[in-house]
């Protein structure tokens, strides 16, 4: 399978080399590259601006003279962020929730995907339908809320973890991978050697599926890390809220301040712009730091999912 892919890629490269020999750099190339550069700038510049703001002095920001380069560099905003501690605490809390969520999610996902990938499972079509159904149809917010409430999960850490650990989309990707990449003969020979189903799963299938496991863990982790709506629905206690929700609260309060005070000058002095910029950077920097290394796993996951999705 992998070899075939290599050949395809090499084939593509050869043909693109062929293109190069025939077509020279044209006006069209310049236009296309310009479009892409502009689009990339829209992704990068806002963060450069925020980073610059976050390490500039209050007065420089209020004078509206900070654009892409910081002025009067100071780390005051970050110092007060760390002194206050609530942002740092919720960051740590979010890491813990995300880690538990990812672990449990992978277990739930494997437990569903492995049996469903086996033709010998009785009632396979039925179970597949049952487990894929939530992808196309969901009852909605209130039934989930009532369920969570009846389970006495409201306002606990577990409400952020348990309801979402089973994801039909991730299960589908894992199942597709198991079916397409792990030969049945391997399992049969293990079976003849006396391995049980559990042993086959833990000793053979999982070690062979490391790449897809990495990808799906990332899907789980990023999904959990980024979502804040369920914090809003289910959680009242401040210490149980994740960092994204804290950020959301900050934005919401800032916009309310801006919309209620009609005079804009008042809004300017009442919103600590620098502090907000620093908070955004504080939450974003970890993602931006690890993202370039993980990106290829995500792309791989989408490709596998696209085979049947």
């Amino acid at each position, binding site marked *: 399978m992998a070899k075939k892919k290599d050949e395809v890629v090499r084939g593509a490269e050869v043909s693109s080399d062929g293109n190069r020999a025939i077509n020279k750099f044209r006006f069209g190339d310049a236009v296309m590259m310009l479009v892409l550069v502009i689009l990339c700038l829209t992704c990068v510049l806002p963060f450069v601006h925020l980073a610059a703001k976050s390490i500039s002095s209050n007065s420089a920001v209020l004078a509206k003279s900070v654009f892409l380069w910081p002025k009067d560099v100071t780390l005051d905003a970050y110092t007060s962020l760390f002194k206050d501690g609530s942002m740092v605490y919720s960051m740590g809390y979010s890491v813990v929730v995300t880690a538990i969520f990812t672990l449990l999610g992978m277990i739930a996902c494997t437990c569903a995907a492995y049996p469903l990938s086996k033709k010998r499972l009785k009632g396979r079509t039925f179970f597949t339908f049952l487990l894929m159904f939530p992808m196309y*149809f969901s009852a909605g917010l209130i039934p989930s809320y009532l369920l969570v409430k009846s389970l006495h999960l409201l306002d606990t850490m577990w409400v952020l973890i348990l309801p979402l650990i089973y994801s039909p989309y991730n299960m589908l990707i894992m199942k597709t991978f198991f079916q397409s990449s792990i030969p049945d003969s391997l399992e049969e020979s293990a079976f003849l050697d006396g391995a049980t189903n559990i042993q086959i799963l833990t000793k053979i299938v999982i070690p062979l599926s490391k790449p897809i496991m990495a990808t799906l863990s990332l899907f789980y982790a990023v999904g959990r890390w980024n979502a804040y709506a369920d914090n809003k629905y289910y959680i009242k206690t401040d210490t149980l809220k994740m960092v994204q929700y804290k950020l959301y609260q900050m934005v919401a309060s800032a916009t309310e301040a*801006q919309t209620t005070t009609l005079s804009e000058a008042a809004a300017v002095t009442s919103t600590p712009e620098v502090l907000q910029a620093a908070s*955004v950077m504080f939450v974003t920097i970890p993602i931006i730091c690890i993202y370039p290394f993980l990106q290829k796993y995500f792309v791989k996951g989408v490709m596998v999912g696209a085979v049947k999705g």
Partner: protein
Amino acid sequence: MDYKPAKGYDGSKWVGWATFAKVFKDADFIRSLRNSLVFNIMDLLVGFPMPIILALILNELRYPRFKKVTQTILYLPHFLSWAIIGSVAYQMFKPSTGMINIVLQNLGLIETGIPFLTEKYHWAVTYLLIGVWQGMGWGTIIYLAAITGISGELYEAAMIDGAGRWKRMWYITLPGIKGTVVTLLIMNLGRIMGSNFERLDIFGNTQVREFQYQLAIYIYEKGLGNAQFSMSTAVGLFQSLVGLILVLLADRVAKALGEDGLL
């Protein structure tokens, strides 16, 4: 409100379609339904072609390193939460202190700040564009994968026949990814009723409420805000059902047109 959560299904009175009848007469519901449909259709019109165009452009690039860096940067917004995107957007778009307004003012193009996020029509445009911006890079992955599946011989033959770059794009690449386009279109049609609560919520404020009030907000506010469980659930169910029906219909149509379809 005949369903009492404490009593469960057995203890609650059976009201038949009464709740649905009430919902469809509710002015708030009609308004949120209209907003949802209008915004989602616009999202589809603007947002759906964008990744296809980008994928075509990326595919034509000749410098692998440039391509790789561009892709990495364009995928980034997909990994940021709406909380982050929202706060960045406010920092960029605020009328008085947002960078874009300051730059435009300094250039002398505008007198006072443009209310990108606090006036409903401006808000609508900003909201849509931010949505497109967030999804455009990520959306290219599937199309790029589909494009690599097209046989290189086709391009060679076309080149020998004298087809230029645009001709090749139009007659080979686009037909080659037609199946993928149709599949993704079906999936997107299913989302025409739903909307992302977080995206609406983070950009919400009193001035733009008229447009921002969509089904997701209705369900949240009626259900969790006012504890009108029955109404809110009915709307949620209606939303899911219409979404499902749309997917099934679109799938039928695609199959009738000779495409693979989704299911």
